[in-house]
């Protein structure tokens, strides 16, 4: 830099008068300095601009952002959340923008009640070999209300309802959710019967787990919304056959019962059909009897005057007429003439079952 024109000592150097123009070298230096200073100025302005521009940030469609000014969240509750779009804040260290994913569904699994499996076994669905006992350190299980051991695991699907709480209040919120799920599973199992958990009331058990994890999440203010809870339970590997036998017996029982009910239906249906036809028969018998007798009575009334007019002749006529009718209907007629001595003849019949036609043989006594 150039010296000030008025030096504090006031005594100009006699060798170098101040007005004397600089030599070529220092002039070039000054020139260079001046131009580099200009560049520095531009660079500094650019840096400041860049610094300010670094405060721009975008919030994605499945995100919300929160600005912390000197570490304190700007705004309260819902208002603190910046919606998707382009935003600007002062750069660090004044402001700090934190983006929070509220995207779709988060998931945690509880395996605290499940036996120990390696990831490969889990993928292939294979079970590790079962020992005679369960090591409580390695193998997880739950105790049911009737003090049975079962394995049970759950998958919880949830949504972040309060991102501020979820992110700023917990070191590891999903871990807290998982703990709540573990606890809910254990508590639910401890009040259910083993058969209810495994077969009879699977949905009820699942519902209780879901309700309890929802309650825990509310009580602990985890800022989540429980969407879905899927629970899977199995008996201990050591007792697989014993449990399968019970199931088999149960299936067998319902089969036997169904068969019995089927035959019950059959028997009662047949009986009621028989009863119905019995009654119908009686009804028609009754109708026939009444109408027969009625008709006969009517006819009797008609013929009575005729009879009274000529009783003997009437009887004779009726008898002969009837005999004539009867004889035309009769299949075989055999006439025996009187024997010469006036004694009755002996007649022997050989009846064949198959051929209803009788074979007669006459013998003279």
């Amino acid at each position, binding site marked *: 830099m150039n010296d000030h024109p008025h030096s504090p000592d006031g005594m100009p150097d006699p060798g170098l008068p101040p007005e004397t123009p600089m030599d070529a070298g220092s002039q070039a230096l000054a020139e260079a300095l001046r131009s580099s200073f200009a560049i520095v100025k531009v660079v500094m302005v650019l840096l400041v601009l860049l610094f300010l521009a670094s405060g721009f940030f975008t919030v994605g469609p499945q995100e919300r952002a929160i600005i912390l000014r000197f570490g304190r969240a700007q705004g309260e509750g819902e208002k603190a959340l910046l919606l998707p779009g382009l935003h600007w804040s002062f750069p660090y260290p004044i402001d700090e923008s934190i983006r929070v994913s509220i995207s779709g569904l988060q998931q945690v699994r509880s395996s605290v009640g499940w036996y120990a499996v390696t990831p490969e076994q889990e993928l292939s669905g294979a079970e590790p070999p079962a020992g005679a006992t369960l090591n409580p350190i390695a193998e997880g299980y739950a105790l049911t209300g009737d003090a049975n051991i079962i394995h049970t695991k759950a998958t919880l699907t949830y949504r972040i309802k309060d991102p501020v709480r979820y992110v700023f209040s917990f070191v590891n919120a999903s871990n807290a959710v998982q703990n709540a799920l573990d606890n809910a599973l254990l508590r639910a199992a401890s009040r259910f019967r083993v058969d209810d958990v495994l077969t009879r009331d699977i949905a009820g058990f699942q519902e209780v787990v879901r309700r309890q994890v929802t309650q825990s999440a509310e009580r602990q203010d985890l800022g989540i919304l429980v969407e879905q809870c899927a629970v899977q339970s199995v008996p201990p590997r050591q007792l697989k056959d014993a449990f399968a036998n019970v199931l088999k017996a149960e299936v067998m029982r319902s089969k036997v019962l169904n068969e019995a009910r089927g035959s019950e239906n059959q028997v009662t249906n047949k009986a009621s059909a028989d009863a119905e036809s019995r009654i119908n028969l009686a*009804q028609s018998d009754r109708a026939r009897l009444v109408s027969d007798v009625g008709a006969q009575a009517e006819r009797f009334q008609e013929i009575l005057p005729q009879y009274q007019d000529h009783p003997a002749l009437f009887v004779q006529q009726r008898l002969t007429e009837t005999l004539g009718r009867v004889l035309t209907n009769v299949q075989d007629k055999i006439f025996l003439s009187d024997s010469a001595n006036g004694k009755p003849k002996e007649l022997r019949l050989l009846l064949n079952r198959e051929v209803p036609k009788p074979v007669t043989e006459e013998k003279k006594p």
Partner: protein
Amino acid sequence: MKRNPLTLIIALLLILIFGFLLFSFQVRTTDVAVVTTFGSPTRPITEPGLYVKAPWPIQKVWTFDRRVQNFEDRLTEGLTSDSFNLLTSVYVGWRVSDPTAFFPRFAGSANPISAAETLLDQWLGNAKTAVVGKHPLSDFVSTSDNGAAFVAIEKEILEGIQSQIRTNNLGLQVEFLGIKRLQLPESVSQSVFDRMTSERKVLADRFQYEGEAEAQRIRSDAERKAAELLANAESQATRIKGIGEAEAAKSLAVFQRNPDLASFIFRLNALESSLKERSVLIFDQQTPPFDLFRGASTNLLKK
């Protein structure tokens, strides 16, 4: 040349920034802090924001995470009041609530949070043993009380650990606690399995016998019902017939006008209907009209 104003501004800015860094500090919303003056805690800061302090080495700021920490303790064995060995493990959500109290206890260690958790683990073990010893096994697992006793146990452990923390003034707070594992010692699991196996056996047998007995009952019930139905029908049929006969009897009065003729007609009808089909008749000459063969006709002709 005169002094460049930009240079002045930049110099001022630099000094400002330097002073800012030296005399102020920020506390984030996720943290709490304590300011120490010559090593002793003088000012706790629990609200986030920008704060002023004297420069180092006079004052120093210590910050701690204020968020809820998840901690799960070891599986420890306890004896229930009815002498069952029970292994329990709990999880707690705890956080630093009072940095002034927390600082002197844990600031010396490399990781204050895990140092605090070591202490928590120890106390949780004691609290669990004490609470488990007060309850029978049926308070932990029961089908009758809807899990009320289970919740009460968790609450007792929580109260135990909270009072322990209060007495020791640790500056931390347990927000919630829950049992995470409830298991039996390995040696006991074998006897549980044995019991379960025999229970299964009993159940399977019961299903079988129940099924057979029930099926038997259903079948005999059906037989009984069928017999009843038929008997009812039979009696109803008899009744109907009786009614029919009574109705028919009304018509019989007509026949009373000439019983001889009536009986004759009835006999005629009976004769006709009995000889309707596939019958063989054998006559002799006495029977009319075959008496004609004997000569009745000739007699008539002779006349």
